[in-house]
């Protein structure tokens, strides 16, 4: 006969065994809380103040911490985030925005209309999109403890879209932080997001910790809004500049995800069954920006000539490599962006015509002035594209002086009108024509066009709901883009993110990585 003690031990063993078995039988793919997500990034941000910087390195960390009134969903359409809903007055000059109840900052204090107003006003001073938007805003005022009103000086339909733009986003932070930071990048990183900023050890790691008090929306909207669950205890971002090391790290499981690998590593990645590939379709498009303030390219015929001299297929092959990672598309926007995508201008884009280019150069009176073409070696695609673009331009008679710089030097030189004629850059997705960066007259390239201003003005008056009118206008904008050629589009290129599918689960592709609704198992 067994002793009671022995019986208890046996019973405990059976229970433990069952628990073990049940755990083993847990449905695969079942989300589980806990653990740390290790992310190998390609660059360390200059700041984590999302209102201050347009840099991708800032955004992909900051959007775990900060949130705005509105944000993009998985289809790149703007949906409420901190806002519960909004109303538009019949004359379309007043937006009334109601905040979701019981939202708190990560310091435990409630989000008030005063915080929202201070944040929006700072955004209106700091960001290009904010400044553009505030040209149309008469005032932002508090209505009650959960409501604000935005009064416009004239109809401006992209208002809500711009409030949800992830570039230098209109995120909401405590008024005290806004006041102490002023227009300088803020060091106090307090938002409302699912993760809290924990520490930043320069050159080593940025650590975010789960926000236990996060109040999530319930909708399955995806993207940057809707239901967000912070499963992982922590997200650790490691700046790993060498792509081979990022790949090696994700292969061994040291990192769960490696960002922005060079596309020519794709074959190595595919060979490893532990690795999942995320080809990011809405990523960036490459373009040659012309100096329209000074020099030969003030004449639009020469810009058209350069466009006709280019052969995008050669440029993209040289710049990016494997065909899985690029696409020839005339659009200012990506096909995935629905109503914004247009194929207008496709009769000009990707139609190399050397005779026409030479004729346009002759007509414009080009007589061999030096064309300074700037590119950067910090980005391999950029330098590779320049190696092909220079001879293509030379083939039609442009006298090209190709200059290669590091990225900070290129950033600095491109702000000086007398130092360059063309530079190559990538454009991350915009979400509205009024937010296209090179349509602005102060951005390098200095595009000024009464015709484009008029079209953008019409766009800003067209209701978001009038898809027919917006389609017509979008086509007109793109036709004008190909006539005036402020930038010669080369092609869309896709990003390569790689993650360890043994460890990281629930991850979904988007234009930059996010780790809510994502969990780790080890």
């Amino acid at each position, binding site marked *: 006969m067994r002793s009671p003690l022995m019986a208890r031990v046996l019973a405990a063993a059976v229970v433990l065994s069952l628990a073990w078995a049940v755990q083993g039988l847990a449905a695969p793919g079942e989300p589980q809380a806990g653990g740390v997500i290790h992310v190998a990034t390609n660059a360390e941000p200059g700041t984590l103040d999302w209102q201050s910087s347009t840099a991708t390195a800032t955004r992909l960390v900051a959007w775990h911490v900060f949130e705005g009134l509105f944000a993009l969903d998985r289809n790149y359409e703007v949906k409420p985030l901190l806002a519960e809903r909004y109303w538009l007055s019949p004359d379309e000059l007043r937006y009334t925005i109601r905040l979701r109840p019981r939202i708190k900052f990560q310091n435990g204090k409630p989000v008030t209309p005063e915080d929202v107003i201070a944040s929006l006003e700072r955004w209106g001073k700091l960001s290009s999109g904010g*400044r553009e938007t505030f040209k149309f805003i008469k005032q932002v005022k508090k209505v009650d403890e959960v409501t604000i009103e935005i009064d416009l000086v004239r109809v401006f339909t992209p208002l809500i879209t711009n409030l949800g733009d992830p570039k230098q986003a209109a995120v909401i932070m405590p008024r005290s932080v806004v006041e102490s930071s002023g*227009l*300088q990048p803020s060091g106090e990183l307090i938002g409302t997001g699912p993760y809290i900023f924990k520490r930043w050890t320069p050159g080593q790691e940025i650590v975010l910790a789960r926000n236990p008090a996060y109040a999530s929306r319930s909708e399955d909207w995806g993207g940057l809004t809707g239901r967000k669950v912070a499963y992982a205890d922590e997200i650790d971002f490691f700046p790993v500049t060498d792509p*081979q090391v990022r790949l090696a790290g994700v292969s*061994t499981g040291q990192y769960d995800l490696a960002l922005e690998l060079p596309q020519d590593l794709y074959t190595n990645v595919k060979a490893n069954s532990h690795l999942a590939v995320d080809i990011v379709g809405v990523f960036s498009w490459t373009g040659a920006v012309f100096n329209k303030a000074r020099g030969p390219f003030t004449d639009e015929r020469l810009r058209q000539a350069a466009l006709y001299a280019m052969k995008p297929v050669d440029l993209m092959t040289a710049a990016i490599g494997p065909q899985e990672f690029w696409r020839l598309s005339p659009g200012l926007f990506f096909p995935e962006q629905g109503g914004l995508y247009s194929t207008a201008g496709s009769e000009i884009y990707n139609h190399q015509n050397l005779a026409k280019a030479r004729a346009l150069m002759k007509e414009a009176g080009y007589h061999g002035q030096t064309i300074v073409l700037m590119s950067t070696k910090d980005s391999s695609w950029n330098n590779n594209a320049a190696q092909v673009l220079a001879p293509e331009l030379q083939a039609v008679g442009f006298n090209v002086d190709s200059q290669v710089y590091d*990225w900070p030097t290129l950033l600095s030189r491109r702000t000086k009108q007398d130092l360059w004629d063309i530079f190559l850059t990538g454009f991350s997705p915009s979400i509205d024509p009024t937010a296209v960066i090179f349509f602005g007259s102060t951005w390098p390239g200095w595009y000024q066009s009464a015709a484009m201003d008029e079209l953008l003005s019409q766009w800003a008056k067209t209701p978001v709901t009038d898809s027919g009118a917006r389609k017509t206008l979008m086509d007109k904008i793109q036709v004008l883009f190909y006539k005036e050629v402020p930038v010669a589009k080369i092609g869309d290129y896709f990003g390569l993110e790689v993650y360890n599918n043994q460890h990281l689960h629930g991850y979904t592709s988007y234009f930059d990585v996010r780790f809510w609704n994502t969990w780790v198992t080890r």
Partner: protein
Amino acid sequence: MAGYIAGRLAALVPVLLVVGVTVFLLLHLIPGDPASVILGPDASETQIIQLQHALGLDRPLFVQLVLWFDRLLHGDLGTSIFLRQTVVQAIWQHLGPTASLTGLAEALALATAIPSGVLAAWKRNSRFDQAFMLVVLLGVSIPSFWAGLNLIAVFAVAARLFPVAGYVAPSHGVEPWLRSLVLPAVALAFTQAGLIARMARDATIEVLDEDYIRTARSKGLGEGLVLAKHAFRNALIPTLTVIGTSLATLLGGAVVVETVFVLPGIGNLVVQSISRRDYPVIEGVVLFVALVYVLVNLLVDLLYAAIDPRIRY
């Protein structure tokens, strides 16, 4: 001796001043500015001008130089534009990984290079010597970043013995700290070992041809004793010179190795700071490295006297 040391230390002041002013001017002559980097590629000219003003970068260069120099005279190296900490704090924070890395690399280099160099000299023209020369040639020829990537491929990815990258502070345990340092230290030590071993071999060969070695052997001393007591000590002086200069070279090599292995050391700090044009940090780190270089050289000179009684200061 004290007078000699005081004189050498006093000579530090003009050296650091010249280095400081030269670096300041060179840095501000190269294009690029931190405001553009902070704000990102889509920032408008207005934004950049706003931030340049806030950071004081729109002041005339001469004014910036005077302000920097004034702070320097007060022992203030300034504040990092990006890191939100003083330059001294930034250097201190990044010193640990670099000291660990260079210390371990130098120890590995010395532990392998000196015995093998002396042995190769003793077995001059043998198969061992030929193999030694080949390895040494590889050591001085292979760039440390390439050695590093290959070490990662073999020992981290294939064998899974070490982490691919990253640094673990010794406060988290000696074993993980060492594991995070082994591959970078080997990559860095490879070149160093090549240089030191070659010098140790040449110096030992030279000493082994001296009359006093012949005398020692004729007295019936064993080869081991001849090598250890008579040859090695005399061969150490030129080797010490290489070790001294190689310590400074190690700091340069650490820049590359720290970047490949993502070690948050001084090398990584300076690379990041250059790419962001974080002027105060670059100036501070260059001054710091110059100081280390001069002090290491002084230490080597003092060691000469300790090893060779004929040298007196």
